[in-house]
């Protein structure tokens, strides 16, 4: 109702200075909350994007999460055995052809089957322990970003025929080998072959660059002396968020440990969740403090205007009308503070987005990661409005309840 709003405005105008202070409180609270949320969400998003890009969305290995039921358990109902670790099955994924065909029929994404073998690479008298991954290059390229990390040669050159390898640049450096050199790789099974280096990569992950050797699946199977063996299936999905569901279904169908990227990074994602809780708690605390400012000034106004309240009530204003007047005052301050705060937040976010800092050796210029999300604005402004309305409501209720006669008696 316009009249009530007009009355509220006159009250607020009469306390302009305190009003500005409490509006400023809300503005700062909302503004910094939004900027903080943008920065936190931004760094989280950037991290998760890198993560999703860098690793398979689902990885199926030849492990099981629970050990097999032991013969003693099968024989006697009373027997229960705890603390067993599931045993690695040296045979890898049993019946990989069927397993892969099954997966391909329903998984919405690319699948790469691989065989992990450990071994030693030797070149010119230098030995390095390596982790050999046998894959089909065209499948692997659909699942990983290795093509982007190639520094020389082409990943698809693995297909060239013969025993070929793509290795990390650090490994090559350690071995003293270069492109087109031939290194000897011996697997833990004792099988050894000469591999021609057809490509080098640099992922930036030290462990990978120092130990990883890509070969064709067939070559790895030769090294492992196991035909058709596969012990590592990696899946890249069109929608990374579907990873958990896909992993669960694969695990159910194949009875093999299937790990989604979320599960693999559970602790990090949990840390992010905790960080978000802390952030929103701090935001809420800031806004509650701002709410105290509003509570304070609305209380002052109700005391100051006690006589006006009595007059209006004697004229025929209802308690509810008076409550609305003071809640409007709170909401006015909260709304103004919220609107200005949203502006401040947007400005701070925009400014932070332009801050550049150089990351190691001036190779890349990085921006502070910020995310623009209207939800941050909705939450911060919504919280501000809610606290402001409550901060207005509490004194408003008391002021409206009072008997006008008490005040009039006191005045005459």
């Amino acid at each position, binding site marked *: 109702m*316009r*009249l009530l709003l007009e*009355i509220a405005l*006159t*009250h607020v*105008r*009469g306390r302009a200075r305190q009003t500005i202070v409490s509006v400023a409180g809300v503005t700062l609270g909302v503004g910094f909350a939004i900027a903080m949320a943008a920065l936190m969400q931004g760094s989280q998003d950037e991290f998760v994007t890198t993560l999703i890009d860098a690793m398979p969305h689902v990885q199926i290995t030849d492990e099981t999460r629970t050990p097999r039921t032991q013969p003693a358990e099968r024989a006697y109902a009373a027997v229960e055995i705890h603390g067993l670790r599931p045993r690695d099955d040296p045979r890898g994924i049993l019946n990989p052809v069927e397993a892969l065909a099954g997966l391909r029929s329903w998984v919405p994404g690319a699948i790469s089957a691989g065989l992990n073998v450990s071994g030693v690479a030797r070149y010119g008298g230098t030995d390095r322990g390596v982790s050999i991954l046998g894959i089909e290059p065209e499948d692997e390229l659909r699942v990983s970003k290795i093509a982007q990390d190639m520094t020389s040669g082409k990943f698809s050159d693995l297909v060239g025929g013969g025993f070929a390898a793509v290795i990390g640049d650090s490994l090559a450096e350690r071995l003293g080998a270069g492109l087109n050199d031939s290194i000897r790789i011996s697997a833990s099974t004792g099988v050894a072959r000469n591999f021609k280096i057809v490509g080098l990569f640099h992922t930036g992950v030290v462990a990978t660059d120092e130990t990883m050797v890509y070969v064709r699946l067939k070559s790895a199977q030769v090294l492992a002396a196991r035909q058709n063996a596969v012990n590592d299936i990696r899946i890249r999905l069109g929608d990374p968020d579907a990873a958990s569901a896909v992993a669960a279904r694969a695990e159910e169908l194949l009875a093999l440990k299937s790990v989604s990227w979320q599960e693999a990074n559970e602790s990090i994602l949990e840390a992010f969740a905790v960080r978000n809780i802390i952030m929103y708690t701090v935001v809420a605390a800031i806004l509650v403090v701002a709410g105290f400012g509003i509570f304070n000034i609305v209380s002052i106004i109700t005391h100051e205007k006690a*006589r*006006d309240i*009595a*007059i*209006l*009530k*004697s*004229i*025929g*204003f*209802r*308690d*509810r*009308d008076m409550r609305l007047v003071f809640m409007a005052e709170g909401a006015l301050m909260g709304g103004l503070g919220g609107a200005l705060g949203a502006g401040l937040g947007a400005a701070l976010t925009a400014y932070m987005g332009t801050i550049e800092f150089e990351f190691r050796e001036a190779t890349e210029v990085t921006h502070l990661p910020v995310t623009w999300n209207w939800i941050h604005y909705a939450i911060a402004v919504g919280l501000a409005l809610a606290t402001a309305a409550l901060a207005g409501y509490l004194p408003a209720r008391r002021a409206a309840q009072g*008997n*006008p*006669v008490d005040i*009039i*008696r006191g*005045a*005459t």
Partner: protein
Amino acid sequence: MSVPLVEARGVTRILPLTVPVRLVEDVDLAVGPGELVAITGPSGSGKSSLLYLLGILDAPTSGEILLNGEKTHAMTSDQRAALRLRGIGFVFQFHFLLPEFSVIDNVAIPMRRLGALSGREIEARSADILTRLGLADHMRKRPEQLSGGQRQRVAVARALANDPPLILADEPTGSLDSAASEQVFEILSDIAGQDGKSVIAVTHDTDMAERMDRRVHLIDGRIVSDERRRPERPTGRAPGPGAAGIPLE
């Protein structure tokens, strides 16, 4: 007398303090349409308290207040508020205007709250009432720019805004000099009788009380005398010459 406009039946009001204070005791009073009633009595005798009870600003501890024959006891606070808005105009001892609003806006407030007229009509009616009360030149001023007598007339104008049948005035001339008092008294006396409007005014001024239709005298919260100076008027008298001939559109 037909149905009284306002009636108190055995009304007692006790303030429930640690030592209970008896404001009004066992009051019976009925005021009909068109009456101009003076309530007199020594300071502290409960005149204001009785007026608040009659205006349902306060509720009796025991007894009943009836407006137009309707009991007000069981009404909700919202119903009372609605009744006050339409049916009762209050003038307090001190003017009690909203300081931030101009004179004309103060007069407009009850009409705007009622919401029966358009903004333009409200403005016109406010201006009309103020003009009749001789305040045509002061409508845009703030209350603080007026003299005491002028403010009191603004308060009367505000009380008249929704054209209520009952005007209650608590020592409306108490803080005024004799000339200003006379002016306000003339206005109130003119209002009484207009369309059956009743005016109940608390006053210290015996001379003024003598000139009113009826005088109710209180001592220690009790009515000790209730004298009619003039015979009861069935319909009301002719509108006075100046101030408050305010027709209801």
